[in-house]
């Protein structure tokens, strides 16, 4: 094993050290802002550098089998042997770069965005801890290690969503995220148990090595395992039915939304399916389910995003929608396409979130000066901001063009790749044509609502008051710098995996080939004719153009009213604004019955009635009963005592005479 790769644990350790240091500072020296910034950002830069070195090594060697760096033996229990070990291969290399790179940029952004916050050291401590867990997740060499990272990022998500914990809605949002994730984790655990029972191991190399022997293709076991794994993914990656936590998670600081709920944590589900792609390849039904749920989620979330007024909520639903695309990709077996979209999405979605962060920061600053109580996140209070924030507007347009699928930018290539692979699979089963159509419709809506967002925020007349306008200005360079880097990625990232008809094609696909080769054995080989491929490319361009132009023409920024004066929505628009009332439905169907069950049955009947009444108090009553019998003997009459005395003597005499 090359020496650089042996040190991969250093990448994981550095953010953890940052967490400890910043945590300590938050207790004992909460005002030491410079130290916190230096440590918090420094460890991430160092981690990124080490990650680069590791990935470079992988690029040079191009190993056919993954390198396993085993640190220590964690759980040697009977037949189960789980080691703390990291796996370095092409897939983990990609994830490593995305996680450390984007995290580094967002840490730098946070220095400016969170600079004035009281909990600055605590913020960086949690953020470093999150990166630590995310790295454990993507580098784990076995299901339990991955699960540690899985749970850990869930924990950090909870801590960071509820970062401003003195507001109850923030704390509630954190709880909601954690609890919904837990439901998914239950699926993950069941899958792990089943995998262990079938293969006798939980390490990736052993499970994948023995999978073709142990599982019957398309059989009930492998289908169940993969469906349970996917349940975990729906929780972590916010797919139907467990997506409702992600829009609520926007209660956390915007850099958190960018890092955790756009670029890294929510992509963990996609990574999991990519890592276990062999298992999904052996269970075609699960693959179809994954793709179907992904497609449906993409469309569903896009419809909701059409009518949201809060800029972060638009982006949140956009994230849910784009994650759906990624699942469509990995569901139809196009692992590299799904990962490709993961990478490009990390660039432009992080960019969009950070940009919106700059916007919110500016409005906040303005409202602070004028003592206004308006919502700085509501687009109805914005408008024409490009006059005061040209750089931010510029980079956000780059990201919008990317996500809408304008040809040449990264998003065009990654989204098109996924839709093309879905179309190919239509040969096997016509349902995939349906999925393709749903995906195309969602792409149309995506272009539309993203353009809507940009129009209402940066163009048209400004709906901010004259006094506020005087305080609006561009964000400082510590915040705008990372935006530029991400914009470059959004612009040029397409070269990672160009379609087959163009020269220099499929670089990422080739890079990930050792990871996907085992699964490819079970996937039927298929290609598009060049004609079909050009048609699809043209169609994608048309969709993007139609969406954007449609928004430009149909929506009138001048007609938008300030949030405080806006009339309530009615009819179908209201349904979309209220997210199809899903939260209310969940509340009635799931939450209320559960609360009723807990209170009336488990608390009153079981705990108070049975355990307290019969168990605790009951045994006390029994003891007291025995005591009452005993005290019945204490008559106070000497005659009674003499009687027992004589009886005792009698018995003793019997004993003596017997012997």
């Amino acid at each position, binding site marked *: 094993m090359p020496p650089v790769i042996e040190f991969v644990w250093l990448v994981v350790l550095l953010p953890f050290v940052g967490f400890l240091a910043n945590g300590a500072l938050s207790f004992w020296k909460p005002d030491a802002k410079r130290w916190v910034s230096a440590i918090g950002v420094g460890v991430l830069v160092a981690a990124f550098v080490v990650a680069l070195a590791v990935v470079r090594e992988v690029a040079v060697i191009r190993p056919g089998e993954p390198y396993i760096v085993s640190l220590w033996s964690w759980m040697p229990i009977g037949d189960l042997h789980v080691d703390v070990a990291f796996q370095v291969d092409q897939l983990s290399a990609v994830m490593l770069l995305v996680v450390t790179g984007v995290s580094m940029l967002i840490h730098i952004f946070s220095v400016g965005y969170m600079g004035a916050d009281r909990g600055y050291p605590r913020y960086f401590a949690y953020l470093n801890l999150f990166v630590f867990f995310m790295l454990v997740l993507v580098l784990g060499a076995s299901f339990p290690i991955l699960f540690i990272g899985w749970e850990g990022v869930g924990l950090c998500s909870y801590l960071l969503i509820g970062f401003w914990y003195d507001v109850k809605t923030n704390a509630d949002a954190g709880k909601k995220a954690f609890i919904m994730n837990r439901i998914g984790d239950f699926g993950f655990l069941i899958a792990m148990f089943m995998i262990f029972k079938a293969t006798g191991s939980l390490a990736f190399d052993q499970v994948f090595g023995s999978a073709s022997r142990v599982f019957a293709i398309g059989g009930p076991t492998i289908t169940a395992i993969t469906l349970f794994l996917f349940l975990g993914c729906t929780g972590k990656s916010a797919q139907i039915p467990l997506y409702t936590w992600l829009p609520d998670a926007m209660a956390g600081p915007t850099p958190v939304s960018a890092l955790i709920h756009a670029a890294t944590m929510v992509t963990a589900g996609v990574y999991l399916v990519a890592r276990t792609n062999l298992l999904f390849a052996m269970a075609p039904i699960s693959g179809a389910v994954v793709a179907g749920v992904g497609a449906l989620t993409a469309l569903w979330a896009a419809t909701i995003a059409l009518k949201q007024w809060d800029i972060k909520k638009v982006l949140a639903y956009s994230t849910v929608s784009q994650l759906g695309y990624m699942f469509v990709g990995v569901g139809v077996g196009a692992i590299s396409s799904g990962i490709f979209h993961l990478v490009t999405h990390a660039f432009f979605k992080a960019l969009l979130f950070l940009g919106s962060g700059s916007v919110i920061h500016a409005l906040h600053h303005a409202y602070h000066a004028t003592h206004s109580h308006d919502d700085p996140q509501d687009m109805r209070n914005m408008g024409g901001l490009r006059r005061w924030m040209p750089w931010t507007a510029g980079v956000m347009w780059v990201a919008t063009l990317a996500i809408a699928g304008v040809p040449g930018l990264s998003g065009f290539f990654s989204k098109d790749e996924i839709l093309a692979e879905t179309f190919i699979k239509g040969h096997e089963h016509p349902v995939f044509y349906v999925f393709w159509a749903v995906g195309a419709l969602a792409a149309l809506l995506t272009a539309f609502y993203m353009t809507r967002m940009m129009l209402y925020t940066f163009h048209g007349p400004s709906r901010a008051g004259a006094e506020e306008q005087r305080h609006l200005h561009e964000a400082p360079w510590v915040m705008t710098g990372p935006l530029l880097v991400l914009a470059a990625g959004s612009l040029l990232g397409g070269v990672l995996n160009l379609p087959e008809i163009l020269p220099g094609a499929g670089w990422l696909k080739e890079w990930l080939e050792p990871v996907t080769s085992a699964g490819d054995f079970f996937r039927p080989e298929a290609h598009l004719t060049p004609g079909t491929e050009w048609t699809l490319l043209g169609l994608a361009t048309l969709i993007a153009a139609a969406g954007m132009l449609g928004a430009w023409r149909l929506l009138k920024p001048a007609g938008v009213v300030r949030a405080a004066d806006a009339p309530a929505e009615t009819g179908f628009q209201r349904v979309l604004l209220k997210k199809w009332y899903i939260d209310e439905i969940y509340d009635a169907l799931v939450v209320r019955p559960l609360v009723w069950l807990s209170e009336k049955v488990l608390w009153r009947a079981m705990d108070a009635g049975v355990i307290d009444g019969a168990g605790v108090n009951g045994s006390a009553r029994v003891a007291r009963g025995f005591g009452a019998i005993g005290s019945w*003997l204490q*008559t*106070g*009459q*000497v005659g009674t005592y003499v009687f027992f005395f*004589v009886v005792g003597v009698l018995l003793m005499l019997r004993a003596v005479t017997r012997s």
Partner: protein
Amino acid sequence: MLLGPALGVSALLFVIGVGGVLLRRNAIVIFMCVELMLNAVNLTFVSLAQQLGPDGQVIVFFVMAVAAAEAAVGLAIILAVYRHKESVNLQDINLLRG
């Protein structure tokens, strides 16, 4: 030898004493029955002293001394109780009821 019959008489007296203790309610009479039991035991010791040595008689001596002390204190207690309760009937002395 008279040892057998003597032990028998002693046992009989002892049993009569036990019966008296269980039968009566007057505290003083009960006390007297206890003295009767002690006397029965004294007879046993004396009759066995014939076979086993004068030590038996010494023990009787001690028994008598202890019986005297016990009688004095016990009757003093009964006097004290009588002053409170105006009665020596055991049924009336039940303040220690649990």
